[in-house]
C-alpha cells in the first residue's frame, strides 16, 4: 500500500518536474522567438551575435540577470519587495498543473504517466482563480518599491487585470456550456472529429465571437501591447517593476511570458480543439504535436500584435473592457445557451 502511494508520488514529482522544465525552457526561448520575429517584421535581424543566429541569447540574458546586483530601494518594505515577484511567478506556473498536453496515457510497468499532472473536475475554474492571484503580486510590487512611477504603474496594472478578468472568464463560459463540464480534459475530448467539431466552428453556435473576446482579454491580462501601458517604457520607465533588478526582474519577466503561454494553452483547449487533429485521417500525428502547433499559433499572434499596434491610453483601455467586451461576452453566453437548449429539445 505504501509502495503504491510512494510510486504515485514519484510519478507526480517526475511529471511536475518535466512540465516545469519544459515550460521554463519554452518561456526562455519565447523571448528569443519574440525578438527574432519582431526583428523580421521590422526589416531587421534580431539577435545574431551569441551562438548561431543568436539562439544562445536567452542563456546569455539569464546569466546576466543572475549576476546583476540585487538592489533594494531605501524606504522599500523589504519583505513585500521580495515577496511580490514570487507572488507573480508562482500563480503563473501552477496553472500548468491542469493543462492536458496530449491524449494518451503512457504505461511503463506499474507506472502511469498521464498527459496532464492532474485532472480535477474544476479545471478551468482553478486556472482562472490562480491567475487572479497574479494581480496581488503586481499591486504589492508597485507599492513596495517606494517610488511614484512604480505605484502608478502597479495601480494601473491591477485595475487593468481586474477589469479584463471578467470578459476572460465570461468568454470561456461558451465552451463550458458546450462541454457540460469544467474539466479541461473533457473539453479536449468533446472536440474530437474534424475541425468542424472544434468549439470555435461547431454548431449550435460557433464561438468565434467568444474567441475574439477571449484573445483581447488575454492580451490585456498579460499586459501585452496594445494594453501594456502599465509597463510602458516610454511613459512610466518600466511601470511597476521599475525598481527591480537582477533575479527579481527576471521573475517578473518570466511570469509575463509564462502567463502568455498559459493563456494560449487555455485558448487552444477551449476554442481550437486541444490536441485533436483538424482532419480525422491525420490522427497518426502524435496529439502533442497538434497541441504545441496550436499554442504556437497563438503565441505568434501575440508577437504579431506587438509588432503592429500602438498602445491604448488607459481610459480607452478601461472603456473598451467594460463597455464593449463585457456586453459582447454576455451576449455570446445568452445566444449560446438559447441555441444549445433549442438544439437539445
Amino acid at each position, binding site marked *: 500500500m505504501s509502495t503504491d502511494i510512494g510510486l504515485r508520488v514519484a510519478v507526480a514529482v517526475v511529471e511536475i518536474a518535466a512540465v516545469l522544465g519544459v515550460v521554463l525552457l519554452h518561456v526562455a526561448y519565447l523571448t528569443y522567438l519574440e525578438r527574432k*520575429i519582431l*526583428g*523580421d*517584421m*521590422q*526589416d*531587421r*535581424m534580431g539577435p*545574431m*551575435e551569441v551562438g548561431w543566429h543568436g539562439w544562445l541569447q536567452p542563456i546569455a540574458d539569464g546569466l546576466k540577470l543572475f549576476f546583476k546586483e540585487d538592489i533594494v530601494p531605501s524606504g522599500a518594505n523589504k519583505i513585500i519587495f521580495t515577496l511580490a515577484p514570487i507572488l507573480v511567478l508562482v500563480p503563473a506556473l501552477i496553472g500548468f498543473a491542469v493543462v492536458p498536453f496530449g491524449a494518451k496515457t503512457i504505461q511503463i510497468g506499474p507506472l502511469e504517466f498521464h498527459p496532464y499532472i492532474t485532472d480535477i473536475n474544476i479545471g478551468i475554474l482553478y486556472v482562472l482563480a490562480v491567475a487572479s492571484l497574479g494581480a496581488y503580486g503586481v499591486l504589492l510590487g508597485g507599492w513596495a518599491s517606494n517610488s511614484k512611477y512604480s505605484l502608478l504603474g502597479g495601480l494601473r496594472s491591477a485595475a487593468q487585470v481586474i477589469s479584463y478578468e471578467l470578459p476572460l472568464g465570461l468568454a470561456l463560459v461558451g465552451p463550458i456550456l458546450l462541454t457540460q463540464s469544467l474539466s479541461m480534459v473533457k473539453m479536449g475530448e468533446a472536440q474530437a472529429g474534424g475541425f468542424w467539431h472544434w468549439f470555435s466552428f461547431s454548431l449550435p453556435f460557433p464561438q468565434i465571437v467568444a474567441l475574439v473576446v477571449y484573445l483581447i482579454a488575454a492580451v490585456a491580462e498579460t499586459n501585452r501591447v496594445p494594453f501594456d501601458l502599465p509597463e510602458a517604457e516610454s511613459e512610466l520607465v518600466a511601470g511597476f517593476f521599475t525598481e527591480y533588478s537582477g533575479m527579481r526582474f527576471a521573475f517578473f519577466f518570466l511570469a509575463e511570458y509564462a502567463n502568455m503561454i498559459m493563456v494560449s494553452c487555455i485558448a487552444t483547449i477551449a476554442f481550437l480543439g486541444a490536441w485533436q487533429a483538424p482532419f480525422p485521417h491525420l490522427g497518426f500525428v502524435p496529439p502533442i504535436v497538434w497541441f504545441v502547433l496550436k499554442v504556437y499559433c497563438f503565441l505568434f499572434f501575440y508577437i*504579431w*500584435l506587438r*509588432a*503592429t*499596434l500602438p498602445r491604448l491610453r488607459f481610459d480607452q483601455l478601461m472603456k473598451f473592457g467594460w463597455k464593449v467586451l463585457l456586453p459582447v461576452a454576455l451576449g455570446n453566453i445568452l445566444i449560446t445557451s438559447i441555441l444549445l437548449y433549442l438544439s437539445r429539445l
Partner: protein
Amino acid sequence: MDSRNLKKWINTVFFVEILKGLGLTFRHMFVKPITFQYPHVKRQLPDGYRGVIVHLRYDDGTEKCVGCALCEAACPSHCITVVSAEREDMPQKRYAKQYILDMTKCVFCGFCVQACPVDALASSKEYEMATWNKRELMMDKEFMLKLGDKYFPNRRARPKLYQDQLNFFTKMKQKNFPTAKGGVA
C-alpha cells in the same frame, strides 16, 4: 444610417484597419533585412568620405608639408598646432618641425585639406580609431605620414619647378648668400 457611417461601423466591429496593419507586418516578415552586421560586414563608403586627416609625400619620399600653418588658421576647432622651421639641407625652404593634430577636437570637416596650398593634407577613409588610451589620439607628424603612406600609395611627382629653384638655392648657399638661419646683417 448612411453608407459612410455604415462603413465606419463595419471597420470598427470587424477590426478592418487592424487587420490591414497585421497584413503589412506579416508581409514585412519576408522582406530582406536592411540592416547589416557591422563588425563582420563594413559599409561601402562614398567617394567624398572625410575620415582621419593624413599627411602626404612626393614620389621621391620627401614630405609635402612646408609648415605654412594655413591649415591651423582654417581649422574651425583649432585642433592643429604647427611649428615651422627652415630646412637644414635646403635653406629658404621650410618644413613643419612640429605638427600636432588633436583628433579629439577634430570634426573631420576637411577645411584644412582645402586650405593647404601644396596638397599636403588629405582625408582618408579611416574611421575606426577607438582606443583605450586617449593620448594616442593626439597625432604627430610621423603618425600622420604613416597613415598617409597606408591610404595613399600613389604619390605625385615633385614639381619640376621646385627642382630648378632648388638648384638655385643650393648655388646660393655655396655662394654664402645670407639666409634666415645665418641672420641678415
